[in-house]
């Protein structure tokens, strides 16, 4: 009973739900500094292995390629904690604002 007046007033107000993804996709406020998908710059990497040592879930794995050691990132194991970004001495790892990464194929979820 105490809420009747409030509920009646809400008949004339705008809807509070954003109809994502059917039309209101642009209205979602995405702040700066959102921790999304990892992006990696191969040229800055020196192969120190700190990202693999401190990753909580084993998403960063150290492998060899023609220029030396480097990590590859398994996004399906990633927690988006940004510990690798913080600990990299050459700032080769950044977390972008991409958050729509669901898919059907696991091989799309590896960042090389």
């Amino acid at each position: 009973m105490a809420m009747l007046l409030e509920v009646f007033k809400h008949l004339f107000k705008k809807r509070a739900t954003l109809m994502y993804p059917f039309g209101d996709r642009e209205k979602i406020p995405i702040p700066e500094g959102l921790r999304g998908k990892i992006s990696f710059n191969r040229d800055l990497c020196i192969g120190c292995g700190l990202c693999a040592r401190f990753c909580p879930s084993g998403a960063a794995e150290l492998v060899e390629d023609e220029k030396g050691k480097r990590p590859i990132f398994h996004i399906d194991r990633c927690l988006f904690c940004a510990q690798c970004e913080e600990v990299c001495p050459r700032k080769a790892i950044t977390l972008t604002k991409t958050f729509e990464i669901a898919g059907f194929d696991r091989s799309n979820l590896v960042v090389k």
Partner: protein
Amino acid sequence: MSFSSSYERFFDIPIGPQHPALKEPILLRLIVEGEHVVAADVDVSYTHRGVERAMQERNYIQNIYLAERICGICNVAHTLCYCQNVEGLYDVEIPSRALYIRVLVEELARIHSHLLWLGVAAHEIGFDTLFMYIWRDRERVMDLIEEITGNRVTSAINTIGGVRRDIRPETCERCLKAMDYLEERIKYYKKVCETDPTVIARCAGVGILKPKDAIRLCAVGPTLRASNIKNDVRADDPYAVHDEVPFNVIVYDTNDTLARVLVRIDEMLESINMVRYCIEHMPSGPVRVRLKLSPPVGEHLSRVEAPRGELIHYVKSNGTEKPERYKVRTPTFGNIPALCEMLTSKGDYVVNIADVPIAFASIDPCLSCTARVVMLDREKEKLWVGSLDRLRRWRGWG
């Protein structure tokens, strides 16, 4: 307790582990006589994940994120307690700006958790309109937390040595505007809860816990403060900058579920004032100190007032980069004896089966926090169904 010879009088009813009235799997074993609940026991083994043992296998930095995932709603409290614990081993001083940011995010998380609980409690008594309106207002707090820390849940802003990010002036402005909006809405919800006849009929006089029992059974958090005992870790054992930020400890003296609702609403209003104080008095300076990976040998104990009560972590280190023993005791685990006492009918005080969901929800149970001890490789869970045979072999509880 002995049973009479007419064996049909007492029935053993299991509620859970999967039940529409419960949000997380838990088994509540109720002994009922007609409509009244005579005794209760609780089995919390359905969400244990082996966190304490898992922490012994990972280094201190990886453990921050494991501690955070003990509970999604109280994640700020767990990381805060963990980081304070490990910093106590190093015995180092944390910069003042970092401590103010820690208190700011902790109080925002407290507002979010109490709004979540208020909505869930309204849903438990069937008042879905209030539930929807409260959760719409909770989105303002989630957006603020996302802007400050980078994620809505699992904020990960605390690290060993301080906080990971600084807070910008535009964010502070938005935060103050959101606090004004929320204060007006929370005062409105307080008026609804104090005057609406549905809420009063379902909550007043239900789930009574007397002050003597609350002390004897070691209850914590709003469950304790709704029984007229003035205890709060932020006031008794201050951590971060809680000795500089002023606030009041809220107590009510009616010992029932309605008192717990009002304690949480008033705590939200106190948190809003604390957030405003932190933003206005934030000092400048660095936000973290760099520390070595392996702390010195020793042990430390750290306590924090999580939204649900007193949270305590204990660490013992042996000089390597992995802890030797890490113990977590969450507030819901500490409230289990008090819960069983609340659900027992004695003398004039009767507990109906219909009162069980709201009385259980009034201690703000967070089962993910509760059972986090070792796992080996078990994947199967079993559903337990009560029987009269079990009743005859009943030997007591707690």
